[in-house]
């Protein structure tokens, strides 16, 4: 069987299109590359959606933590603390447990599937981490910017929308880039721990361990997986770098925040 044929058969296997049965004997490198790559669809799905939705929640949580009234501030602080303070492994376990209970009460039965349930957990997780990053950035918005906004008569929503928010993003962006990288890495845990895999439609790690289990040789599938993730990381760094340039476009050249060289990059 030619490699092109393999790609046609298994390229979309992870979303249930193509050959129903996974290869069982005579594993070729092409099969491993194709199926593990096919699994990357789910990693990208989880990562991209969680990042997108989480971004807005994070902005809200950062504002909330920065807010005056305790009844807004405290819940935001606790939200960030619980999700940042515990391993994702354990969050998945509890989430699955709670989703099951909710389902048994007759609500939202789709939450127990990995595609929805794990996505919810990842959204909340990244919202907490990015929320803390944005909160830190919000605290370091230069006072001059705020005073200038006041002088122009900007207040309330428009002050936030036009002054605080862009500056916050600009300051927090390098750290947020790292958070994005970590989030994509974390998506490999979805099928690895709590959530079930339906009909052998798993993520890249699922297929990598499938091959490792069948060939008893971990030295081929896992490095392939690693290779895919290095590529993905490069793409993320590239995309976020473009956004970073846009965020900093009004600054003189040498004052621009260079993405790679910021010290407190990590979550």
């Amino acid at each position, binding site marked *: 069987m030619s490699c092109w044929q393999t790609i046609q058969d298994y390229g979309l296997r992870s979303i249930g299109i193509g050959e129903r049965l996974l290869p069982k004997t005579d594993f070729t490198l092409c099969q491993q590359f194709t199926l593990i790559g096919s699994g990357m669809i789910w990693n990208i799905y989880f990562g991209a959606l969680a990042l997108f939705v989480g971004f807005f929640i994070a902005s809200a949580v950062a504002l909330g933590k920065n807010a005056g009234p305790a009844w807004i501030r405290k819940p935001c602080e606790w939200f960030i603390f*619980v999700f940042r303070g515990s391993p994702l*492994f354990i969050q998945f376990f509890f989430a699955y447990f709670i989703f099951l209970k909710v389902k048994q009460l007759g609500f939202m039965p789709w939450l127990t599937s990995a595609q929805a349930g794990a996505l919810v957990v990842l959204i909340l997780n990244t919202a907490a981490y990015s929320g803390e990053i944005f909160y830190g950035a919000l605290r370091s918005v230069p006072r001059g910017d705020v005073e200038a906004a006041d002088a122009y008569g900007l207040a309330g929503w428009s002050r936030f929308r036009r002054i605080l928010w862009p500056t916050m993003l600009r300051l927090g962006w390098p750290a947020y880039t790292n958070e994005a990288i970590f989030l994509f890495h974390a998506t490999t845990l979805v099928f*690895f721990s709590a959530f079930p895999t339906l009909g052998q439609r798993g993520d890249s790690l699922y297929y990598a*361990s499938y091959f490792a289990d069948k060939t008893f040789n971990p030295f081929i599938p896992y490095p392939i997986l690693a290779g895919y993730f290095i590529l993905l990381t490069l793409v993320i760094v590239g995309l976020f770098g473009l956004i970073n340039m846009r965020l900093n476009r009004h600054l003189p050249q040498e004052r621009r925040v260079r993405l790679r060289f910021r010290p*407190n990059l*990590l979550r």
Partner: protein
Amino acid sequence: MFEFCADPETLDTFRWFACYLTTGKHIGMYWSVLTVLALLAITAPAALFFGFAGASAARSHVSPVSWLGKAYIAVVRGVPDIAFFLFFVIALDQMFEYLRHKVKCPDWTEPIRQGNDFIVCDAAKLPLGSSPQWVHETYGFFLAVLTFAIVFGAFTANVLFGAMRAVPRAQIETAEAYGMSRRQAFWRVLVPQMWVYALPGLGNLWMILIKATPLLFLLGVEDIVYWAKDLGETKHARFTDYPHGDWRIWYFLALLVFYLTFTWISEKVINRLTKRLSHGQATLGGDAQRKVTA
């Protein structure tokens, strides 16, 4: 543990739990807490060492060294730690045994790879086949530490590399103006000052390191999550004196409390350290401290 534990079926709830929570297996779990703490305590400085080496290499003016440092940072950071753990330990172990084999048994004629088997001479085995179990366990622990240190070393290198860049250029120029060599300026001016810039990043890494410990069981170290899973599973009366249903939720709750407490304490310590390190530094934090005292 207690004398009354001989026949658990007859006990009242309190005593039953007193016995249950002190079985050999539970003691194993309590020990594993210490294992995790010990691992963190050893890994942190080791990762710092790897990170420092990586960052220094990446800054080097010798191109190959600089590429090597940058490649280390980029590649290891780009890979999910879980994927790394799944094959790296075996690779590391084989590498050590291979090196020892080359040194200790130069006259060995058999191939090392025989089909699927990886065979080195007995003297090169790590640990030696004849050594007791605790040596094997210690060796496994050491491999886990090394793997963690290499992975987190790459992240540390990234942070330190950034921190070295963040030290104001003028400081180095001044040092050079005073006649210090590159090496002297690096060790006497750059390194002491970079920590304050590195600390937020390092603090975050420490938190991530804590939360990566549930992956230890992949490296063959029996950590708390391993025990919590095993202990929480349904136990039938045929195989234990303390049968119970699916109690995983309770064990995981205990883990949650453990991790939350641990990160909470860490956060406090890091905050305090940041204050201490900002003292006398040319940063906003340092300025703020001066204003208060002045």
